[in-house]
């Protein structure tokens, strides 16, 4: 299986789409949507308790997608819901099940979701989660203890080009690179200019940027597609990450408008 990083290198420009696992046991609708859009994107990103709202754990959908859809599958794992034992264990299980692309994120705070009473974990921050995953790929855990069989992993992180002040974000960004992030997916952008400004201020990242393009509803698809076009034409990113606030029809039309 070629990893997502290889796909970016080979294709020069990639399109990814975000899928949210169901709030229940039925994976049918997600698989149906993936079937519709799978051939038009290079990778499907499976979210993890998106917005701190309870969902089916993402590894199951990721595994099923990797088995059946030709696109790459990227598994999102938050530090919010897992300590280092659980993160490491989930990464190993994902790799064993055929999912080797990971998006390691801090995760929206619990107070923003549907279980604000939950105790958030954050045993590691996203930089340290990358350190953990990078270590696993090199055959050892955080304490240097050897694994029986190391996973091959392609690691990604989130980028917030519009967060201000930018200087603290750039610190984090450099650390994510140093800790092994091989690609960055941005938060949904307000427009191509936001990315242009960011690139001017941040300079060379040394890793591909996948630009977040979101349509919140069917009416927003045309504007989002415009933005996607401008980003691509302007050479501002090495790919697009399409999302639709969990609405399958909106996502399908956005992929239709911007996909391969």
């Amino acid at each position, binding site marked *: 299986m070629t990893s997502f990083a290889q796909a970016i290198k080979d294709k020069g420009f990639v399109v990814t789409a975000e899928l949210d696992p169901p709030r229940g046991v039925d994976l049918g609708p997600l698989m149906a949507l993936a079937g519709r859009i799978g051939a038009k994107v290079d990778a499907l990103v499976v979210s993890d308790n998106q917005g701190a709202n309870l969902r089916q754990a993402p590894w199951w959908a990721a595994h099923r997608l990797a088995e059946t859809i030709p696109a790459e599958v990227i598994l999102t794992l938050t*530090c*919010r819901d897992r300590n*280092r034992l659980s993160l490491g264990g989930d990464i190993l299980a994902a790799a064993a099940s055929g999912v080797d692309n990971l998006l390691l994120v*801090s995760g*929206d*705070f619990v*107070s*923003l979701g549907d279980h604000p009473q939950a105790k*958030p974990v*954050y*045993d*590691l*921050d*996203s*930089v*340290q989660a990358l*350190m*953990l995953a990078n270590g696993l790929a090199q055959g050892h855990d*955080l304490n240097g203890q050897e694994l029986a069989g190391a996973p091959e992993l392609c690691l990604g992180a*989130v*980028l*917030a080009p519009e*967060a*201000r*002040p930018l*200087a*603290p*974000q750039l*610190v*984090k960004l*450099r*650390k994510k690179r*140093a*800790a092994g992030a091989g690609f960055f997916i941005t*938060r949904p952008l307000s427009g191509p200019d936001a990315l242009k400004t960011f690139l001017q201020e941040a300079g060379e990242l040394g890793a591909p940027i996948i630009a977040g393009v979101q349509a919140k509803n069917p009416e927003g698809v045309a504007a989002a597609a415009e933005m996607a076009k401008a980003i691509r034409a302007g050479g501002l990113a090495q790919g697009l990450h399409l999302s639709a606030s969990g609405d399958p029809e909106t996502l399908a039309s956005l992929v239709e408008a911007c996909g391969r």
Partner: protein
Amino acid sequence: MIVAERKPFAEIAQAVAGYRRVLVVGCGTCVAVCLAGGEKEAGILAAQLDLAGQLAGRQQRFATACVERQCDREFLSELDAAAREHDALLSLACGAGVQFLAERHPTLPVLAGLNTTFIGVNQDVGRWDERCRACTDCLLSLTGGVCPVTMCPKGMVNGPCGGAVEGRCETDPERDCAWTVIHARLSDSDRLANLEVLVPPRDHSRANLPGRQAHAAYLRRYSSHD
């Protein structure tokens, strides 16, 4: 200091409902400063409980006492005689003080009148803010005197999450993002290089267990004799 607040009156009244002679025990240190459990608050609570007891037609008596610190045996011993005259003790100390008092009177019900909230500072008259989670491995020298473990809800130690909006925290637009403040402080004191340090996963092993420490000089002095 330790900050605490009084439990809701109804909860306290219910907890003491079954006891005839109750001693309300204040604590003269942290909880007195934060106006939750000092001598004055103990007196007020006792009077309120007394009134509520009378209205409910209960035969109850509430007396008060206050010691300098309930987390210190030396001061707790002052209460021994009075405690024996009562059916229950209602402690207005922080959680540590309540436990120490309960340890000293294992046959007496010792009840908690406060909710202990945090380690904090006096921000203004009647206002306290949390500042430290007692993580056992202080990062303040690195982070410009701003605690990322406490002041960032996610405890991020390598920089901000992506959720900050105009320098405010994603959890609350009224709060500064801790990392905006850290960055500004380090910039102002010409220490931005501190931020490039990659902080490895933290060692929680000590904080995971009930804390215990001894003073080195104390150990030297006493261990040589046993």
